[in-house]
């Protein structure tokens, strides 16, 4: 029961990942790709939590913690570059 619910959640999140990846490949301007990058990072955090649930290893959550900190720094750096404030 719970395993099948986790599988359904992983499949739905995979479809969302595919949509964001298509926007990253297509995206007309740079900002569209930055938004798609941000969404892909958040979806990757979700995948890490789901894989920690599937494998039942709590050490995987540390990687999600590093992601939640570092993606923010990357997006801030990109935005400052695009504003022209470096």
């Amino acid at each position, binding site marked *: 029961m719970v395993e099948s619910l986790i599988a*359904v959640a992983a499949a739905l999140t995979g479809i969302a990942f595919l949509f964001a990846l298509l926007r990253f490949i297509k995206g007309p301007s740079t900002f569209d790709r930055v938004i798609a990058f941000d969404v892909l990072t958040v979806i990757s955090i979700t995948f890490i939590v789901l894989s920690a649930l599937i494998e039942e290893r709590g050490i995987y959550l540390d990687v999600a913690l590093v992601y939640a900190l570092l993606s923010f720094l990357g997006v801030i750096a990109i935005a400052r570059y695009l504003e022209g404030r470096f």
Partner: protein
Amino acid sequence: MESLLDITGGVLLVAGAVFLLLGGLGLWRMPDLFNRIQAGAKTTTLGTILILAGAAFLHPEWGFKLLLIGIFLLFTNPLSSQVLARAAHRRNIETSPQTSVDMLADAFSQKATSENDLSEKAGSDKDAEEKS
């Protein structure tokens, strides 16, 4: 036999995944950059926090790390989307024509055409005055 805690966690996981799917669909379907920022920021924040809550229901011993990840996401995700929207506004990104609503323009044009139908000469004079 699963307990009620496991069922609740699984349902929260699927609900968060549905929100993430809606966010991805909005990111693909929206016509405009700012609409994409809106669709990409809010729904992914809510979906990820629902999935973290579902994981905390399934494994209560991971609660502290999951709470920490949720707090970081809750701080950083709106902040990064706001910084991006400010940078896009400063670079003068054009908006889609679908996003600007001007209902009075349609009403004025209909009024002008009906006046033209009633009295063609006066209407045309008034239009000429307005144009000049």
